Every structure is written in C-alpha cells, then in structure tokens.
C-alpha cells in the first residue's frame, strides 16, 4: 500500500489531537468532581490543570492562584491555547479533512460533528452547570471515532500511523497528569491523608482505570500503587509501558532506524528499573520530567525518520 509521508504525518497528528482532547476532557471532569468533594480551604487549586497542559503559551498567561473560570476557559475553549479542547478538535478535524480519502466516511462525519459541537458549545461549557455534559460528550464522540477506526480500518499504514499517534499522546498525557498531581500533593503544607486517597482515586478515574485497578491491584487505593500501576502495568492500555510496548511493536514493522530503537529501549529500561517506593518527590519529579523529554525526543525522531523522506 502506498502512503504519502504528508498523509501519514497528518493521520499521526489527527490521532494525537483526538487522544489529547479525549484525555483532557476526562481529566477536567474528574478534577471538577475532586474539587467539589474537598472541604473549603484545602490547598488544591485549578492551576494543576494548567500544569498538565504546560507549554510555552500557558506560562505566559498564568500565574498561581488563577480563578476557576479563567483556567477552564483556557483549557476548554481558548483558541490561543494550542492544546485546549477547542484547538485539539479543530486541528484533528482539519487533519481528517485532508486525509479523508484514507479513512472510513463515518470518521469524517463524526469528526465534523464533534467540531461543530465544540465550536458551538465550548464557550458556554466552562460553567460548572454545563461542563460535565459537554466534556462527557467530547469523550464519547472521540471514542466513537476510535471504535470506527478499530473495526473498519484495514491493518495497513493508515491504521499503524493512527495507532502510533494515539500511543505516544496517551503516554505523554498519563505522564503529565501523574506529574502535576504528585507536584500538587508535595506542595501542601498541611498533610491530610484522607484526601490523598480521594486524589488518587480521581487519578484513576481521569484515566478510566479505577475499575481494573480494584480488580488487579487492590480495592485499597494508595499513591505508590497507583503510580506503579499507571506506569508499569503491561496489560493496561492506558499505562505508559503498554504504550511503549505498542510503539516498539508497531515501529518494528516499518523502520529499522537505530536512533528510534535506542530511545525506545532506553525508555523501556527506565520504566523497568523504576521503583516509586522509597522515592522522594524530587526523584519522582526528575524521573517524570526525564520521561517527558524522552517522549518529546521520540516524536522528533519519528518525524525525521518516517515523515521527512530524503530526495534522490
């Protein structure tokens, strides 16, 4: 099967943007619920959400103690934030539009619907009243697209590049969520362990893994186990090691690029050695920021090796 490099790149980014919108919607939803469960005066603030999407733009716009509405506007409906739900959906749809002939027609129709929905509703959905319904619908529509792709796209390049985009973005998002939350916990002056377990429960909800955690790990929820589970459980589709395994397997079929294999093996080794027990926050922060950097590098190399073909 022939696939243009540009088209492969657009499919890859379509998948990344869809995964980003979906993960962000789920995170904002659970974080809202978490905050609602907290007593007044607790030190968790909305800034954690900004930290998750942290990019060059966000540090320019926000200082600490930002207000709920302005944070949510930035995360959900701001066109200035390149990672807002609105921007992600816009970019995803634009990429579907230009790769339409490689995808099932339903994917275009749903992506278009999702885009119209977000364009019309996102601004009114930053209030708590409308937020939940809006975010759930974003998640559902993304899942609907995933379902169509999984059941109808032939297992060729089209599928491979979409899968690659999803896996990298998911690993990236899971790492970001864990890192920001751990940071928020470590910053507290007054320790209140009752709310710690609530926070970790919500972390599992944000990644849609609460149920399986209970079955596989334990009905008791503690921070270390949650972190270990989300980084290292090989069977869990949302865990980072699962994503890395998937990328390795996927890339093997179409590239022998040494640099890519090296960085993937390196990430793998780091995850295998990783033991959160007895780690202080600083160590964890270093680990997760190193991982972030390696993931960014991986994206950069994939771009070079697969999408920028040298001329004869």
């Amino acid at each position: 099967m022939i696939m243009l490099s540009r088209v492969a790149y657009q499919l890859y980014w379509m998948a990344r943007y869809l995964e980003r919108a979906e993960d962000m919607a789920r995170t904002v939803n659970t974080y809202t619920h978490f905050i609602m469960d907290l007593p007044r005066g607790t030190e968790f603030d909305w800034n954690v959400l900004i930290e998750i999407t942290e990019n060059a733009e966000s540090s320019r716009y926000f200082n600490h103690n930002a207000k709920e509405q302005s944070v949510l506007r930035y995360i959900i409906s701001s066109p200035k934030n390149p990672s807002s739900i609105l921007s992600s959906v816009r970019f995803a749809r634009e990429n579907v539009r230009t790769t339409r002939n490689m995808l099932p027609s339903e994917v275009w129709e749903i992506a278009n619907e999702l885009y119209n929905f977000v364009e019309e509703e996102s601004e009114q959905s930053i209030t708590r009243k409308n937020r939940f319904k809006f975010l759930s619908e974003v998640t559902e529509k993304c899942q609907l697209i995933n379902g169509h792709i999984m059941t109808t796209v032939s297992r060729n390049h089209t599928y491979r590049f979409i899968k690659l985009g999803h896996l990298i973005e998911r690993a990236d998002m899971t790492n970001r969520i864990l890192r920001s939350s751990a940071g928020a916990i470590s910053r507290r002056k007054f320790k209140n362990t009752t709310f710690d377990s609530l926070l970790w429960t919500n972390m599992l909800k944000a990644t849609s893994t609460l149920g399986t955690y209970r079955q596989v790990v334990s009905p008791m929820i503690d921070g270390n186990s949650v972190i270990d589970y989300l980084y290292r459980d090989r069977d869990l589709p949302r865990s980072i090691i699962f994503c890395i395994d998937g990328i390795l397997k996927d890339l093997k079929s179409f590239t022998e690029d040494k640099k890519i294999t090296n960085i993937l093996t390196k990430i793998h080794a780091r995850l295998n050695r990783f033991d959160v027990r007895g780690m202080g926050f600083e160590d964890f922060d270093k680990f997760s920021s190193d991982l972030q950097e390696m993931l960014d590098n991986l994206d950069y190399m994939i771009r070079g090796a697969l999408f920028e073909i040298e001329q004869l």
Partner: protein
Amino acid sequence: MSIAAPELRPVFKEQFINEKWEKYQSQKFFDELISSSGNPRIKARAVVNLFKNMSESEMNARKKAAELAIRDMGVSFTVYSSERNIDRAWPYDIIPRIISAFEWRNISLGLKQRLKALNSFIDDVYNQQLILKEGIVPESLVIQSPNYKQECRGISPPYGAWANICGTDLVRHSNGKLFVLEDNLRVPSGISYMLENREVTRRVLPEIFENYSILPVDDYPAQLFKTLSSLSPREIKKPCIALLTPGIFNSAYFEHAFLARSMGIQLVEGSDLFVSKNNILYMKTVDGPVRVDVVYRRIDEEFLDPEIFRSDSTLGVPGIMRAWKSGNLSIANAPGSGVADDKAIYRYVPEMIKFYLNESPIISNVRTYLCSDSRELDYVLSNIEKLVIKPVNESGGYGLLVGPKASSKEVVRFKKLIADNPSNYIAQPTLRLSTAPTYLNSSIEPRHLDLRPFILNGSDLWVTPGGLTRVALKKGSLVVNSSQGGGSKDTWIVENIK
C-alpha cells in the same frame, strides 16, 4: 385489502400545486420539460405527473430532505470572498432535466468529433503547424496567444491526445437546437456534482425512477481511471497515478478528494512530489520515493512548474516539465492544451473538424465575431446592444457584457475596453437559453440552464451519459455559475419511454 385507514390527503393543496404546473409557461423560450402548448413533453410526462400529485408540503419535505442529504454527504463548494473562504452546500433542484437517449446519441457523437478535432489541432500547432500554413486559422492568433506555450513545441503525448478530460458547455436556443458555447480544455470541474446529484435524487425521490430507464452515470471514475492508465509511459500492469490538487483552499477541493477516493489513487500536493536529476517524478511516501507515471493535474499550468512558468508558485513541482518533456511522465491535461480553449480559437473549431477529420460538425458553434478583425469589430461596435461581449481568456462567467441587459454606462465602458485591446474580445449574438421548471419558494418557475458533459480521450473516446446541468436561479438571469448564485439539476438520459 388495505388494513390501514386511507391517508387523509389535503386535496386543496394538491390542486394548488397542480395549478402551478397548469399555469407554468416559459413564453418565448424553449422549455426542456413542457412544450409550448403547456403539456409535458412525452419524455417528461411521468415525472411531471408525479410532481403534480405531490402536495406543497410534500414538495417542501423532499426539498428539505435533499438539503439534508447534501449536508450529510458533505457535498460543498467554496466561495472566495475578500475576508475568508466559505464552504457552501451544493445547490440542487429536485426537478430533474430530461433528455432522450435518441437525441443524446447524436450529441455524444458530436462531442467526440469535436474533441478529436481539437486534439488534432493542439498536436498540429505544437508540431507541423499544417493548419497555420494552409491559412485556415490565422497564425498570429495562435502563436501570439498567451496560451500558446513555446515549451511544448515538438512534443506529442500518447495518442496525440493533449486534452484528456474536456468539459464542453452546451446550450439550447429557442429553436430547440443545441450549440456549443465553449470547450473547457484546461482543468474543467463539476463532474463530482453530476455524480452526487444522481445520488441525491436516488435518496430523496426513489419512486421517480419507476417508469424510466435512465442511463447510469456512476461509471465515470472507472472510465477516467482507464483513460489515465492508458497514458502511462511505462508499460506496466498498475501504473502509478496521482491527482495533483492545489490543496484544501481550492474551490474544487471537494471534487479532487472525491475523484481520488473513487479511483483509489493518491491525492497529492506539490510538496509531496519531486523530480530526480534523471527527470523522473516521485512522490514521497513512508516507504521511500515511489515513481509516478501519470499526473491528473487540477492546478493551472501557470502554477505547474516554477522552473518554467511562474517562479513564485508554491503549488507546483520544480522540474515536472522536464519529466514530462523527457517522456517519463504523462500529465493530463497536457500543458499547453489551453491553446485550443480560447474564445477566439473557438470560432475556428468547425474549420478544424473539416480540416482534420474531413467531416461536417455535428453540433453547431455559436456565431462568433473577432474584435481583432477590423470588419467584424465595426459590426460589434455598432450592434453591441444585441451581443454578448466576452474576454478571450476568462472563464467562470466573469468580465462579460450582456448587451441587451447592459446600462448605457457599461456599454460605453466596454466600447473603450474593446477599442483599447480588440484582440482580447469576441462577441456573440445573445442566445435565448432554454428553460426548465425549477422549484423555488413553493412555486414552479422557468429558469435558464446549460449543460456540461465531460468527454475523455486517452486510447479511446468516451462521453458521460448526460452531464452537469447548471441552472440560473434568478429570474431571467443567464448566469449559471455556482460561484455567482447558480443551482444544478440531476440530468437524465432516458431510453424506452412508455
């Protein structure tokens, strides 16, 4: 025996619609469906009867359903405006246009004849120039035309077919006779709308097909694929074909994506392609460079190759002309084809048919006056209010003057334009374009229309059964272009009318 209670029919409404059909009158124009006596033509009888039995609300419901189908199918076209480009839903009228297969057979022959002659002409002017030497077409008209490309001298593409996809605009005069208005040999568009129109009719008026045997149109992508494959310079089983689009911001992007998908070929942009030192065109794929045999280009030739034409073009591919000239690549339509799609050259098509094929034209040309000829110029200037003045090189209905409708100020402006640059203008008598009943704002009214069939020329010649019917939605207007508020109709070629 019927179990359900008989439907309650709003009888008065039916009569209301019925009355609208009874009152329908196209006056001094030829109407495609209704004869001058007010009765439906034989070929249209079953369709008109079906509509006569629909209440107004039913008609509106069908119209609404069509709009919805078009939105769901994503059939759109782009309108350029100064601020931004707007994606608009394709305008479609629920009443089809009907042509008998008997008439079509002849038209189809005429269209093939015409394209054959035009391609012989292009091949001739870039090679031996016999027609110029014989003085049948004035040499200066060809050689000095901006559409005559020196780069194409001495080249002869496979089968001598330069224009492989041609969209010919036909109109019917009040005497019922069809004329060719123009031949579009550069990058004619509209075919996807012709196919989608049929699909919409199938969805919203399924019962209308019952009494007819209508020639299917869905074969087009396969025929186009066959035509393009036949041009491949390499004799291989599966030549690599790519459709070159200027990108998502082009008004016809929908069509480009539609055709690429229906043929299963790659939809490429200039940046996806490159030409190697040994003049071979490649596309950049994830498995490395893949050689391209045929490019179906949907960009104007001025933008095709910055090495040769406009150097500021970012849409094209540097070196693509080298690949073409070395015979390693076919481009459809071939660069330089535009030389025959010029309103001044148009006038000589009947002579070309005689010269190259030794036949007489099956479909007539519209009488055309060249302002570059001093005697004809005199005639044009003194009869301007009876004529349509067209710039030689424009398309899309822009920059023309419709004499009978123009204000005196406009006439003065055009007289000056012509006097300043006579060779840039031609004039034609105003035709009284035929009409067809069109459903607008709950009433049925005559509207003017034209027809654009598509003709393919590779190893064979092939004509679409029917074509794209465009209809002017404004009362009395002759401008059918969708960019200027025109609509469209499904077009049927029908056999065995009961």
